[in-house]
């Protein structure tokens, strides 16, 4: 391609898309926007391209294990996955297994899930037990990790109880999420999170239950997987059916210390469409209304689609969110996609979605993508959903609990195996990122560089 084929970048609207900004949309909403949505934090990020081997090299994966997975805070499970003494969850990361246990003293602890005798995993899956007993020979630790019993004690004169306590890893809790960190010298979770908890004060994540939890093995590197969700730039290519009702190219992107945010508005036509869209067309595109049927919902004559969808969602949330009357139209329909380095992605407001991405087993070219729906509730807390596992070839649409979002994930997944194939066979050396719309990805790689010491 010659350089003449590409138009010059237009000037005059800063680094962003021309036309309506997200802040302009907030001005037009039926209620004043909360302060958190008024924050704008664009920042200088040095990374605009990264080497392809980040996605394809097993050696780079090993480096990540040492510098990232053994060093950073990561979401392991929900606090209410382990509500009672003896409840435990396992968390697997890059071939390592950790055990999160609630002690008899009700405190949460995390241990390496390995018997100190001959190395068998102490627990194969989540459960509740009075002690941690290895299924191989029966070595047993109490819930606080102290060695309690070993069969034929006389045969181990060299095993001293004090030296055989289970090695612990750091544990922290925020928003009902249990985080672990394998580095004994790590900074406290509170300082690592920075301002993130303040962003969520209007939408408390601890007051939620897990309505759905789906985990699927993906045929690509975990970073390629999560980066497919970190920008709205791909909507025009991958989700064209949404264009009439989504502010894709005029999304807002912000980055802070260890976390970033993308805000994408619904019920506004894409800047890609020269003729815009009517209010009803905006709603039809969201609901995927068939041309040969009646629309499932009609926007009333005197309303915008945005005000109408806000009102519909307000009614849906009425039973479970006491403060629903204060929520703005924006909070009731837009996407507020937060990412905490390296792999934890809670959505703001009441979108309910949380993503987590990690390497599957110890492979550079396989990822485990998880989708959680954390739903608000009133009164007695409903039981958390069990995890649905989808194999590499199983479609997202097999998980009924995801609803229509499964169809969106299917569109995203259509690309991802071919991304990994393309990267593996690539003759060029780097992938490159958009200056503004791929802010979150550039922010991620900037932090990755920092951790790798580059």
């Amino acid at each position, binding site marked *: 391609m010659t350089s003449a084929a590409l138009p010059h970048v237009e000037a005059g609207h800063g680094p962003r898309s021309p036309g309506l900004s997200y802040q302009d949309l907030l001005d037009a909403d039926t209620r004043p926007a909360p302060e958190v949505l008024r924050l704008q934090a664009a920042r200088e990020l040095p990374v605009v391209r990264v080497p392809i081997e980040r996605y394809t090299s097993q050696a780079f994966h090993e480096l990540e294990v040492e510098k990232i997975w053994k060093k950073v805070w990561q979401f392991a499970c929900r606090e209410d996955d382990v509500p009672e003494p003896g409840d435990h969850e396992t968390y697997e990361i890059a071939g390592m297994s950790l055990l999160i246990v609630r002690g008899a003293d009700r405190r949460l602890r995390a241990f390496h899930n390995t018997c100190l005798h001959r190395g068998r995993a102490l627990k194969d899956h989540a459960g509740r037990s009075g002690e941690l007993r290895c299924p191989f020979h029966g070595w047993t630790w109490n819930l606080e990790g102290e060695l309690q019993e070993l069969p034929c004690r006389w045969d181990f004169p060299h095993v001293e109880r004090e030296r055989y306590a289970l090695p612990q890893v750091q544990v922290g809790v925020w928003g009902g999420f249990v985080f672990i960190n394998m580095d004994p010298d790590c900074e406290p979770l509170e300082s690592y999170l920075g301002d993130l908890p303040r962003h969520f004060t209007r939408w408390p994540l601890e007051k939620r239950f897990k309505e759905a939890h789906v985990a699927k093995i993906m045929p690509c590197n975990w970073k390629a997987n999560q980066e497919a969700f970190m920008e709205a730039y791909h909507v*025009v290519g991958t989700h064209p059916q949404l264009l009439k009702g989504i502010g894709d190219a005029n999304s807002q992107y912000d980055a802070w210390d260890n976390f970033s945010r993308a805000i994408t508005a619904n019920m506004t036509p894409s800047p890609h469409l020269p003729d815009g869209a009517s209010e009803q067309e905006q709603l039809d595109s969201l*609901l995927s209304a*068939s*041309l040969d*049927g009646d629309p499932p919902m009609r926007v009333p004559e005197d309303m915008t689609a945005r005000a109408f969808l806000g009102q519909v969602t307000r009614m849906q949330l009425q039973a479970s969110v006491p403060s629903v009357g204060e929520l703005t139209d924006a909070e009731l329909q837009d996407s507020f996609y937060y990412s905490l380095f390296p792999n934890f992605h809670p959505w703001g407001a009441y979108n309910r979605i949380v993503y987590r991405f990690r390497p599957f087993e110890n492979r550079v070219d396989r990822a485990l993508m998880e989708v959680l729906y954390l739903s608000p509730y009133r009164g007695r807390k409903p039981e958390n959903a069990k995890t649905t596992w989808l194999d590499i070839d199983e479609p997202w649409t097999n998980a009924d609990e995801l*609803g229509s979002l*499964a*169809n969106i994930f299917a*569109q995203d997944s*259509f690309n991802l195996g071919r991304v990994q194939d393309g990267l593996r066979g690539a003759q060029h050396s780097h992938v490159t990122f958009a200056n503004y719309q791929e802010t979150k990805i550039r922010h991620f790689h900037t932090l990755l560089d920092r951790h790798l010491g580059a």
Partner: protein
Amino acid sequence: MKLRHPLSGAIYTKHGDDRVLVESADGQSGVFAPGARHLRGALREADPHMIGWVLSPDMQDRRTGTSRGNADQAGRPPGVGLPKLRTTTRNKKGRQDMDLGLTGRKALITAASRGIGLAIAQTFADEGCDVAICARGESGLEAARKDLEGRGDLKVFARAVDVAEGEAFKGFISDAAEALGGLDIYVSNASGGAGPGEQAWQASFDVDVMGAVRGVEAALPALEATDAGSVVFISSTAALEYLGVPQAYNAMKAALIAHAGDLSQALAPKGVRVNVITPGPIYFEGGSWEMIKQAMPEMYKGALAQCAIGRMGAPEEVARATVFLASPAASLITGANLVCDGGFTKRMPF
């Protein structure tokens, strides 16, 4: 499913499970398989993501919890189909009798070893239906099965199951549908009974409410597949008027009425009707009013005095109303609450 590509203007129409017809804005057309693999037609190129989207399953069901009933989505015409009335008989004047259209239909009734449930099952059997019944106790169930089998040439499927045991209960329903070769009618009659305290709340919730919820859920695939799918919840006038004691039974029976109303709207496009029968005091041997008559004669007399017709109801009377409401003869009725109480409640029947 038929959508216009917002950028190219081409129309994408779903044809079968894995084919999409694409008509471009300039009048060319082509048929494509998933991944935009070209099969035939002059149009050689299409958007694979749009193809994938148009072929994705159950969009409306997933998003709204209801189907809009388009023929291409649900595989049948929209709305409640007019069920076939299968048998015709002539009365003495040579005109056609009203027929409930139940011959050969398949009905499932919960808690049907005695009382109202048994009477409903018997009436369905008398109308020529195959029936499936359940109850907690094995012995009462066996007697009911024999009684039903003696009523003619019909299939009877009976199993001892506790409605509160969600998985076992749902298993019973799907097994019953398989054994009978389908299901046209589901009657949720089981009740945790009246009583004080938190346990009664839990029992009423588990049996009365969740029995209805789970029962419909498990029966729905079969009910959708027939042209006469119909659901009846058995509630109680305790849900309508104050009976002198606040208790779980009353509130849970009220919940059934609300849920039936919701379902009647949500399931109408799928051709399934949902109604409620609300019996007043029903007297039968071994029933609770017999017990009350003996143990609390004042209360019994008070209730009897409330019955405008001067007597309490019989299970057969509730059964006839239920069977009518459940039958194809009531094809226009959905979301109704039919009160059968001999004038026990005093509110105006708006």
